[in-house]
């Protein structure tokens, strides 16, 4: 697999929880607990999970907004944490950009669109004013906005238009990877398809890689090449998007899919049984022993509450579940 752009290896992020006047550490919130993933050139990886599953923390780690507790991030085979400050500024930050969830807060309200889009260019390049000006107009055109909108302020746009501006800003430096943190969840349903299509077109045009953070499975299915399902800081199932959606292995994945209106006409099983999960996700401060999902799992067996499951590879999918420990059980529980 020579085509890997970014690889995360055993990423963990623990937040210390302190108590009292002396800031005594009484425990750790295990926001991200040993996840690994790879993003290929021109492909999309989605991290999916409930709130608190750790997907945003993982994205922040990739953007270097959070320092990981342990683990390595390899960018084109090089350890990002071993980059010097100047290497980061020239080789990493300009090539990894992001589009944030909320287009209402991700732009400085005092700046004109022209300056918002130009910001990465001003900070990272030595382009002249004229070069920047023409690049901004080019970018506006690419995301489907007109050049005369460059002098407006962000509040004069709709949510969809603002998200287009955010995409233009992310593309300004010709990045290799764009982290999309819930890129459409703040938008009206009618606008989502437009933005997703725009993102897909741009991906093809520039061979961009995307790391998508999402909880909406329809978005994920439309955008992704591969998917990682996260639960309580861990990846419970990881694989190619279509295979994973057609034949989800982990009980949690199945519950997620059954809870969303997602089935396409070509899907074999139109009457997927609804699986309703009970209860809340346990606290990441004190995760349950064994399999972290066993407290809510409808198919839990004895071993689940005692031994953490290992990763099993089944077809193109990797799954962390005791149901697949014995190859014989596999066929029985896949439905």
């Amino acid at each position, binding site marked *: 697999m020579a085509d890997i752009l970014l690889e995360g290896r055993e990423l963990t992020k623990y937040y210390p929880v302190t108590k009292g006047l002396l800031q005594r550490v009484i425990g750790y919130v295990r926001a991200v607990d040993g996840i690994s993933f790879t993003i290929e050139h021109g492909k999309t990886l989605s991290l999916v999970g409930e709130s608190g599953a750790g997907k945003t923390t993982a994205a922040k780690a990739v*953007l270097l*907004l959070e320092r990981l507790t342990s683990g390595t991030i390899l960018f084109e085979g090089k350890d990002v944490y071993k980059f010097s400050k100047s290497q*980061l*500024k020239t080789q990493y*930050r*300009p090539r*990894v*950009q*992001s589009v*944030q969830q*909320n287009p209402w*807060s*991700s*732009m*400085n*309200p*005092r*700046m004109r669109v022209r300056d918002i889009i130009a*910001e*990465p260019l001003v*900070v*990272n390049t030595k382009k002249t004013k004229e070069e920047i000006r023409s690049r901004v107009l080019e970018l506006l055109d690419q995301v489907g906005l007109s050049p005369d909108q460059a002098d407006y*302020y962000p*509040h004069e746009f709709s949510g969809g238009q603002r998200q287009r501006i955010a995409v233009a*800003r992310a593309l300004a430096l010709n990045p290799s990877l764009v982290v999309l943190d819930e890129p459409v969840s703040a938008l009206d349903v009618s606008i989502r398809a437009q933005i997703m299509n725009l993102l897909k077109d741009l991906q093809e045009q520039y061979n961009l890689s995307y790391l998508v953070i999402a909880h909406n499975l329809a978005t994920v299915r439309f955008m992704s090449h591969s998917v990682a399902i996260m639960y309580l800081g861990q990846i419970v199932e990881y694989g190619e998007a279509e295979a994973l959606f057609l034949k989800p292995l982990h009980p949690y994945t199945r519950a997620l899919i059954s809870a969303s209106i997602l089935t396409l006409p070509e899907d074999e099983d139109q009457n997927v049984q609804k699986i309703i999960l009970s209860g809340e996700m346990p606290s990441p401060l004190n995760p349950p022993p064994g399999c972290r999902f066993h407290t809510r799992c409808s198919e839990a067996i004895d071993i689940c509450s005692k031994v953490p499951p290992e990763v099993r590879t089944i077809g193109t999918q990797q799954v962390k579940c005791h149901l697949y420990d014995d190859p014989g059980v596999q066929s029985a529980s896949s439905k």
Partner: protein
Amino acid sequence: MLSTMPNIDTKLKLKISGLTRSARIMRAMTFYIPVIILVLLVLTAIFAPWLAPHDPIKVSLLERRLPPAFVEGGSMKYLLGTDSLGRDILSRAIYGARISLSVSLLVIAATAFVGTALGIAAGYLGGRTEAFLMRFTDISMAFPGLVLAMLLSVSIGPGFFTVVLALSILGWAPYARLIRGETLRLRNSDFVAQARINGASAWRIMLIHIFPNVINPLIIVMTMAVGFMILAEAALSYLGIGIPPPDPSWGSMVADGRGDIDRAWWISTFPGILIALVVLSGNFFGDWLRDKMDPRLRQL
């Protein structure tokens, strides 16, 4: 049918603009009147030697406490009357504008600059910088102001710059507090995170992303401070550690007339009216400026 159309159209326009005619006139007035007052006062201060009919510090004991021209017993020679030493109140008020306005503007500029710079630095950089700067601010706020002013007055002698220095040292801390709070809110905002992803330096973030977004509260506090500073200068002058007599300032004029308020009301009243005018105009002007500077409100 068709003939009624234009009529509907104009009514609609009024509705769309959101304001009736009289409301728009009111809105324009709240801008023009304060601006005219402030401009006139500044011009008065600049051209005081040409405008004042008398020498503001010339004592004329035979003409003590003469009432204003429009009151019985007054004369056209002293339009606003004279004070307890027979000095012309109009002339003193005109010259007083110089001192009162320049003290308050200088102090506001200095305190706002220092307070904003320290507030943004403390709020954005955090950590030890913040701890140090904020404790420093606390100490400054806890220090008794009058004692400091007296100390300065004794050590470098009373005068214009002593007053400016004393009020500046006393006045910056509230700005630092306010701006730090605003900065803390902005530091965690999405667009600052975005700037960091882009690799913007701390300088750039503080200057381009945070500073323009703290201007609103800053302007409000600055305009409120105009009146406060004039009053503070008056308080210092009253205690004899402000602008030394006989130079007039509005504050010291109000203080001078305090004892005569029952028999010669005009001594305190006219400078008092001027202080009130400046304070009100400053506040209205500040409101207008704030609306103008916020792009979100500009179209309204």
